[in-house]
């Protein structure tokens, strides 16, 4: 095997090294960690980092997907392909099962994002998971800026700000009592642009819905939703075929696509950069860039 030339660490190298360090700390200190995996870009990057952290051994923990039952086929196919490729165990907590047997009731608006919490916490309890990796980032919204990399949760999954521990140097304190667990966010210090640049650098495979494609969509609440069995459209919502892409993966009834021509990583990165570099002082509540930015802020999946 050839020896690589040692180059100085750049910003992405440092973020990668920090995330790998976090994965190894958790593997060393917890009994039953799990990675939340939705097939979305952040959780796919998370899994890629986990694979690198333990190479050449396999990732020593399973994956957990809280499936709303409202996922696009492309995403589920990608999820299953990825799990098989890495030879991992996938635990699926199904919102549909909870609705079918009456433990949860469908909401009037049909949205299932808020219904994910109970299946998630049940899966954590049943499997005795003590560390749960998520792809959350501190740049996602202002309120997340104070979230810790190791975030202690009680047995109800709740976060008590007063019990949050100061995080010093890179010495993480993961101690918890029985029944408690720790949410771990290795991507805390990444921005959305870092994630995209890393996907490009590492040539990480993503579901095709992240890139511009023709799709039958209809408009609701300013979002372009996919026409499908669960999501509508309603009678007054005409379906059109447009060129769109998704910026996040989530419940199809409330996660919209954006109008976009960005068909490859270079174009997506250019688009993400542009939507961040919004014109100063412009008020563009209804235009495309603002729509994209709004979507960016949506919490991805469970976090």
């Amino acid at each position, binding site marked *: 095997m050839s020896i690589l030339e040692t180059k100085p660490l750049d*910003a992405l190298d440092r973020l990668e090294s920090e995330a790998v360090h976090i994965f190894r700390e958790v593997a060393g200190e917890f009994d039953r960690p799990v990675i939340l995996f939705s097939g979305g870009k952040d959780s796919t990057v998370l899994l890629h980092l986990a694979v690198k952290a333990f190479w*050449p051994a396999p990732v020593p923990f399973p994956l957990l997907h809280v499936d709303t039952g409202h996922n696009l086929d492309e995403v589920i196919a990608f999820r299953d392909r990825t799990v098989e490729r890495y030879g991992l165990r996938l635990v699926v907590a199904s919102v549909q099962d909870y609705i079918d047997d009456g433990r949860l009731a469908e909401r009037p608006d049909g949205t299932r994002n808020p219904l994910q919490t109970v299946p998630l916490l049940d899966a954590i309890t049943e499997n005795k998971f003590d560390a749960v990796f998520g792809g959350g980032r501190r740049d996602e919204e202002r309120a997340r800026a104070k979230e810790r990399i190791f975030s202690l949760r009680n047995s109800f999954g709740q976060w008590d700000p007063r019990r949050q521990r100061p995080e010093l140097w890179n010495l993480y304190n993961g101690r918890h009592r029985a029944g408690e667990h720790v949410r771990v966010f290795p991507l805390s210090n990444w921005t959305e642009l870092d994630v995209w640049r890393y996907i490009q650098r590492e040539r990480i495979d993503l579901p095709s819905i992240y890139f511009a494609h023709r799709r039958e969509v209809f408009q609701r609440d300013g979002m372009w939703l996919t026409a499908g069995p669960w999501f509508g459209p309603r009678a007054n919502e005409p379906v059109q075929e447009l060129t769109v892409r998704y910026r996040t993966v989530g419940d199809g009834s409330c996660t919209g696509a954006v109008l976009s021509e960005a068909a490859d990583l270079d174009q997506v990165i250019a688009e993400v950069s542009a939507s961040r570099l919004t014109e100063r*002082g412009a008020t*563009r509540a209804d235009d495309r860039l603002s729509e994209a930015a709004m979507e960016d802020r949506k919490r991805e999946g469970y976090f």
Partner: protein
Amino acid sequence: MTDLLRLATAGSVDDGKSTLVGRLLYDTKSVLADTLDAVHRASVDKGLSTPDLSLLVDGLRSEREQGITIDVAYRYFATPKRSFVLADTPGHVQYTRNTVTGASTAQLAVLLVDARKGVLEQTRRHAAVLALLGVPRLVLAVNKVDLVGYDEETFEVIAKEFTDHATALGYPIGSVLSIPVSALVGDNVVERSAHTPWYGGPTLLEHLETVPVEPDPHHTPFRFPVQYVIRTNTAEHTDYRGYAGQVAAGTVRTGEEIVVLPAGLRTTVTRIDTPDGELAEAEAGRSVTLVLADEIDISRGDLIAGVADAPVAVDEFEATVAWLSDKPLRPGARVLVKHGARTVPAIVGELSARFDEQKLASVANPDTLALNEIGRVQVRTAEPLPVDDYAANRRTGAFLVIDAADGSTLAAGLVGAGLPALETDPSCTSGGKAAATPGP
């Protein structure tokens, strides 16, 4: 290729810190459209003609209700030259806890003062804590220069007073820079100001973009806490056994002899593995997996070091602790100490001095150490730890003090570091100047 600078800000709300941080985010275009819209609407509601940039970072109402306003917040911005991770530390309340947290990873700190008020006691205290935590570089942002008529002399007096203070704390010439700014107007934050023709230095952002990121300690002794043992047995990797970790200090090269502590066993590095390929050498900050020549018993928590300059594993050492818990320290407390990847039972013994933050002096033989107080203690550990002096190595000289019962973090520990040494006015101290500089 861009690199990464981790910085912390310190100062009170009154000094305009939120506005300064907001200005950096705004002028580097790091704000999302909808956030900006919200700030504009809120500013118009307040009857302002220009956006109030402090709203970009000030806590939300729900946040204040939750009581997390007094907490370090992390902000992100980038320019084509550098990416920045900014730890924004609140000034007034719990300043030690927050400053210690923010400073622990910072390569540079920006302190704010109001040009009308100059260097305050709080500024001196912040600088003392930053010096204790080993933040290599300081910037003094002399804010609100517009309100003193962009007066050169006012700025120079403040800059000199601060530089003298930083020098007394041990900062070498060249590691401290004062910049006249107005965060509100934007003078010398990102854009050079036409109002300060007498100032020839860089703007704040220019300085942040070009200041040398403190070089990783290539020339400091090699330190590698073993985080995890990677084992596998496949056709490609038969009986693979590698030691995973992040290089904490120095550089390791293949073929070098190393020692595993605390056991003291020696062997050589045969390979430095990464998933992207083998490396001939790995420097501080890099996560790698070391493959060693001999099969010796190594597990998580061990430290791999260079043979020439390995630390000595000790079970008793002096340290400075910044107390971060509501529960005060009582000498003799049984705790856990986390150092590198090892957590061991320990007793925090004799408390020989406490740094009085209000009086900027130290008090000998105090009974307890309370929240936000800094003290000098003797630590005894159940197993020997290969510690370094914090002043020589921030990574392997640092430890956490953890409550064994509820798992909370009690204190930040610095091996060997002395209490902040400050020139003080004897009239307001209990022990006078001599007491402010206790030695080990």
